[in-house]
């Protein structure tokens, strides 16, 4: 199943500059694991032991996956996953 994943500027050094890549899997966790097989290092920039990193927002289509099932959110063919670093500070 093809899932379009939109990569933020700061992570494009893992994707040879690509803004959009394709992944596969039945859940967000599987898609991210699949990306790691081709774009080594990208996974740990998005995920830590606890799940999605606090300062990274991941959206499935128009929804923040934190309000769905987080990293276990189900995805299906044609879905768009968008990764955006939080814009935040003190």
């Amino acid at each position, binding site marked *: 199943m093809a899932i379009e994943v939109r990569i933020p500027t700061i992570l494009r050094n893992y994707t040879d500059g690509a803004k959009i890549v394709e992944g596969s899997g039945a859940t967000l966790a599987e898609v991210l694991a699949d990306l790691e097989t081709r774009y080594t290092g990208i996974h740990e920039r998005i995920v830590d032991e606890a799940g999605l990193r606090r300062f990274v927002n991941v959206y499935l289509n128009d929804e*923040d996956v934190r309000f769905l099932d987080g990293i276990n959110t189900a995805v299906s063919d044609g879905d768009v996953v968008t990764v955006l670093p939080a814009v935040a500070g003190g």
Partner: protein
Amino acid sequence: MLTIRQDLIDAIVAHARADHPDEACGVIAGPDGSDSPTRFIPMVNAARSPTFYEFDSMDLLKLYREMDDNDEVPVVVYHSHTATEAYPSRTDVSYASEPQAHYVLVSTRETGTEDGPYEFRSYRIVDGVITEEEIKVV
């Protein structure tokens, strides 16, 4: 160096004063590759805090989609400090994720919501390293 119009500086300062004592935040978008800030986009500080700011996650998605559709990038990412100097905090550095952006800090600690002198400074923050830069007003 950050090259920026005076009316955009005034807009940032006005936003910072309006939200004082909470931190104000936002973006000035500009055409991709231009390094020229043109479109002022004040954002809501979802943290509504005097010591922290964060763009609301849905506002963030909407903002990046809009910029994408317009071939824009966040040329300036700004926020205010309301009790300390206009210099990036450790938290600012740890969250900084736009290596191409000019991080603008404005401090309202002297005058709060009132008119008067203000601090307005610009930085690059790349790989945890802060570099202050000159500001050229056009």
